[in-house]
């Protein structure tokens, strides 16, 4: 059998090319996603400012696993003040230094100076962790109003020791005397420029309350870093130690978050991709097997048992797949890198994020592809094994359009299931329902694929009359072909339907979400003025000043934003998920923010309470009076009671907590917006102008800022589905080429019967047009129920917002692919002389 399989593959290279390509591309894509998943777990950035520390001690920056991935906490988990001493006492520690960082804006002439890199302030002791050295003629900052600047900052500003400069945090500026200029060894590649204050001053500005972001450790001579790390972890509770490149995880908080997001996005995409790859490989295999119907019938006639036919197909498939999978893994790494770049471009990853490159993604892709191929072979072999040798040997190679009862039943079941899942938001409110509805597209497409020939036969029948009226001669042949070969048509149409449906659902649930969120923000902000910070946020001192200046007839509502983790039970299983949170005080809220309260009273929001969005409330199953388990951004658990449920969660965040409570558990403690209801606009503008980096605007301008963030988010998920789309597009082209190329003989026959080349091409164009129209219509129909479901779940309205540009893009791309992929191989097939083509032996 192996022998026959090998020879068959060698002898029919062209026939196997399509299936080979399908597996190869699946391998490419799975490897690429694997690289991203692995990078989500291990990638990052080697330390820069901590390069001189052997061990870096940080807080427990992630929540332990509940389902599949550690949840990385969004705010810095700081270490208590005494940890530095505790670490210093561990044997083998030469020096232990606490570090705290705060983003600062350097102010020149009353405005924020444009510098090549963002600037972070630190305590002077932390300078040894790099280590920074002071240039001649300067010294360390000794007083609270002294600062040492890194070389590039000093030279950009043109200042040196003894000059005075201003630094602002959250718009609150103070002036400092430059005590000296410092530089790091090797100059080097750094994402931030550092400025050094006294330890105490740095802690105050960061709002650290004596706590530390991290403790850097220099090991005594001859002590290995990893040993020391282990001993520190044993001796000091509630800390995590990091050595080598992992020190970067502590230094760059955003890298940890990016890793988490990358892993999540890549994993969820990998799930869909594996499913789709399986589908594509199975259908391509089935197609290439179907084209060899007569061959299998002959084998059966001369004495091959069913089992032998199955084994032959299985062996062929495995031989093909193993080569294709291995060949695909290599370019897969390159595609992974390209996708990583694209993620960085869309803002999901920091630009300097380094991907982890190991052998694992490639191996996983190969194993997955082989499993998929095994399955594909098994499915594809069922038909030839069941062939009646006599029937199949009949003159015509056209297959009866009969579908197995099992296939029809499975297809119908999937359709029913798909509709049910699409309607899930009606039954199961919250994120589960929405996620389920989005998944409905896949079920429906596969259902349609299984019922394909039936559905398409019906569709082609509907189109037959108008097509014939439009194009009497070619239309007649084309529709006759489509009807007689509904299976071939189905093979061509199903991948397009899948592509159109999946892309539509992805694209339009994003646009529905964005539109709903935008609308909510516009409707929700009733404030007359808004003050925002261009650099990090707005300090509490600014709010105080606004209150003082505007007096009692204005309401000033500072809003702090963070993310919190909520633990709840999802269909009986414990789950934890990150939700956007805002902190605000309810006093006078009616003049600044309308969250559209549905239940309870937002006025009751105070210590120990929380307000939830409609979606969040439904997801957690928590109504007014219930308690929810929340972990704040820095890991602090709370259990507040729900006092209100509101409607505008998409625009403002799903969880609303008291302002001071939430602010105390963010890294910077700064507000992102200060909303002002009433008051004199000149006064507002005056206050803003007095604070470098702050901007006063109206509520309408706020919307723009919010939607920019959302579009960054949706563009990165677009990048993700783009890869999937490319795969689908290739498989669409693949099947169309395969189904057209197999018709060489038929074309030859037509030409011998007197049809000119252009007649045949015209007939193919009509066929392609029918294929394109049918697939787009069916694909959009398949996408509709899930989209309505998603829309209902997210916005309570059954009308998804569909962007005309997106729709146009989908239609145009599909049409272009469809016409090219049938036209080009048809032309190639027609290039042969008909007499030669007709003689082509089976």
């Amino acid at each position: 059998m192996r022998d026959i399989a090998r020879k068959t593959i060698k002898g029919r290279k062209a026939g196997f090319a399509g299936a080979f390509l399908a597996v190869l591309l699946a391998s490419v894509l799975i490897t690429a996603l694997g690289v991203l998943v692995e990078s989500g777990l291990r990638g990052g950035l080697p330390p820069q400012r901590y390069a001189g520390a052997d061990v870096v001690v940080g807080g427990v920056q992630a929540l332990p696993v509940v389902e599949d991935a550690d949840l990385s906490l969004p705010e810095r988990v700081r270490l208590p003040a005494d940890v530095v001493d505790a670490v210093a006492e561990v044997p083998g520690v030469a020096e232990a230094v606490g570090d705290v960082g705060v983003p600062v804006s350097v102010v020149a002439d009353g405005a924020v100076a444009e510098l090549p890199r963002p600037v972070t302030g630190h305590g002077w002791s932390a300078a040894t962790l790099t280590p920074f050295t002071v240039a001649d003629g300067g010294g360390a900052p000794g007083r609270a109003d002294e600062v040492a600047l890194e070389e590039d900052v000093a030279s950009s500003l043109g200042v040196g020791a003894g000059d005075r400069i201003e630094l602002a945090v959250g718009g609150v500026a103070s002036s400092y005397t430059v005590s000296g200029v410092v530089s790091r060894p090797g100059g080097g590649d750094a994402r931030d420029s550092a400025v050094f204050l006294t330890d105490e001053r740095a802690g105050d500005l960061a709002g650290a309350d004596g706590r530390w972001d991290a403790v850097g450790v220099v090991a005594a001579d001859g002590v290995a870093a990893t040993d020391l790390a282990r001993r520190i972890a044993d001796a000091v509770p509630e800390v995590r130690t990091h050595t080598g490149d992992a020190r970067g995880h502590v230094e760059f908080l955003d890298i940890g978050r990016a890793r988490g997001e990358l892993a999540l996005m890549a994993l969820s995409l990998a799930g869909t991709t594996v499913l789709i790859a399986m589908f594509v490989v199975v259908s391509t295999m089935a197609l290439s097997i179907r084209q060899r119907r007569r061959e299998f019938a002959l084998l059966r006639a001369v004495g091959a048992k069913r089992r032998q036919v199955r084994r032959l197909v299985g062996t062929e498939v495995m031989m093909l797949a193993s080569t294709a999978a291995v060949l695909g893994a290599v370019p897969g790494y390159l595609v992974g890198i390209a996708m990583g770049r694209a993620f960085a471009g869309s803002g999901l990853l920091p630009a300097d994020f380094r991907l982890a490159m190991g052998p694992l993604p490639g191996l996983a892709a190969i194993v997955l592809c082989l499993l998929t191929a095994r399955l594909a072979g098994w499915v594809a072999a069922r038909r030839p094994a069941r062939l009646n040798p006599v029937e199949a040997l009949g003159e015509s190679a056209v297959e009866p359009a009969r579908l197995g009862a099992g296939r029809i039943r499975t297809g119908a079941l999937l359709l029913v299931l798909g509709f049910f899942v699409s309607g899930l938001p009606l039954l199961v409110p919250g994120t589960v329902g929405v996620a389920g509805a989005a998944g409905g597209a896949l079920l429906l497409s596969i259902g349609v694929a299984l019922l394909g020939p039936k559905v398409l036969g019906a569709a082609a029948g509907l189109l037959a009359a108008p097509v014939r009226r439009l194009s009497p001669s070619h239309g007649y042949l084309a529709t006759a072909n489509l009807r007689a070969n509904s299976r071939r048509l189905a093979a061509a149409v199903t991948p397009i339907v899948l592509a159109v449906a999946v892309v539509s659902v992805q694209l339009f649930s994003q646009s529905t979400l964005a539109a709903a969120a935008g609308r909510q923000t516009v409707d929700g902000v009733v404030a007359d003025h808004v003050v925002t910070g261009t650099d990090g946020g707005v300090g509490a001192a600014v709010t105080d000043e606004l209150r003082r200046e505007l007096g009692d007839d204005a309401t000033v509502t500072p809003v702090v934003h963070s993310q919190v983790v909520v633990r709840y039970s999802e269909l009986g299983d414990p789950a934890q998920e990150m939700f956007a949170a805002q902190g605000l005080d309810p006093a006078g809220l009616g003049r600044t923010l309308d969250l559209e309260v549905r239940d309870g009273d937002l006025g009751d929001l105070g210590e120990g309470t929380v307000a939830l969005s409609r979606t969040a409330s439904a997801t957690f199953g928590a109504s007014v009076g219930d308690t929810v388990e929340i972990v704040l951004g820095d890991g602090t658990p709370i259990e507040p009671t729900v006092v209100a449920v509101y409607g505008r969660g998409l625009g403002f965040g799903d969880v609303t907590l008291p302002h001071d409570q939430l602010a105390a558990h963010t890294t910077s403690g700064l507000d992102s917006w200060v909303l002002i209801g009433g008051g004199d606009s000149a006064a507002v503008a005056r206050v803003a102008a007095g604070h470098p980096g702050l901007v006063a605007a109206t509520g309408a301008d706020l919307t723009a800022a919010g939607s920019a963030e959302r579009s960054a988010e949706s563009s990165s998920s677009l990048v993700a589905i783009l890869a999937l789309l490319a795969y689908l597009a290739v498989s669409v082209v693949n099947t169309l080429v395969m189904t057209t190329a197999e018709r060489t003989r038929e074309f030859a026959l037509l030409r011998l019967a007197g049809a000119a080349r252009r007649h045949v091409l015209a007939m193919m164009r009509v066929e392609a047009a029918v294929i394109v129209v049918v697939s787009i219509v069916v694909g959009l129909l398949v996408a509709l129920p899930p989209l309505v479901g998603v829309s209902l779940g997210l916005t309570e309205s059954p009308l998804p917002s569909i962007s005309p540009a997106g729709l146009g893009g989908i239609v145009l791309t599909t049409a272009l692919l469809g016409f090219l992929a049938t036209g080009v191989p048809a032309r190639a097939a027609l290039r042969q002389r008909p007499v030669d083509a007709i003689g082509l032996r089976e």
Partner: protein
Amino acid sequence: MHTMTAPAVRLDAVTKIYGSGENRVTALREVGVDLATGTFTAVMGPSGSGKSTFLHCAAGLDRPTSGSVRLGDTELSGLSDNALTEVRRDRIGFVFQAYNLLSSLTVEDNVSLPLRLARRKIDARWIARVAESVGLGDHLDRRPAQLSGGQQQRVAIARALVTQPDAVFADEPTGALDTRTGRQVLELLRSIVDDSGQTVVMVTHDPVAASFADRVLFLADGRLTGVMDAPTAELVAERMTKLGAW
């Protein structure tokens, strides 16, 4: 008549019905016949009279709707698909009118295919001898696409013979060939019967081809309507004209 030896193939009241409802076609009606071991039988009749159906049922390629088919001592109608496949593989050779060969395999591989499927040891000398006997000894390494139609048909015969089957069935083996190559194929079939005592059953439209047989069966409208022993081309042609007139 060959009454001395037990029949190689015996059909008893074989009826074959295709389809159901208004598409129902009765291709064979109660056909009963004994085909003696070591004889060459030709099956003739107008187009659509059920010749191919007869051959398929007799060769175990298809199952009759009712009636029994025996190959030697084996009753075929009761066999499982696997057992029937084994019978086809080991005891029956079949030659179709066209599309007989796997295009990606060489002549040698095509000929030895039934042996491979049976997992029998492949004796290269035996394959060569079988190929030699059909006059293709020099073409063992060629692919079907590199052979003429007559040569392809002879490869198919070689494959049918390679397992030394009890019976060889051929459906219009010369239908696509010119007179000269057709004659070579017919002589080959004749020699199988004469030299190794195997049983050959052949469907044909050509009275000259039928004259190579020991006996001709006439089918019309699914019924066995006549038998002619020691046929000549003239007698057969005459009979056929009558059949057509009926």
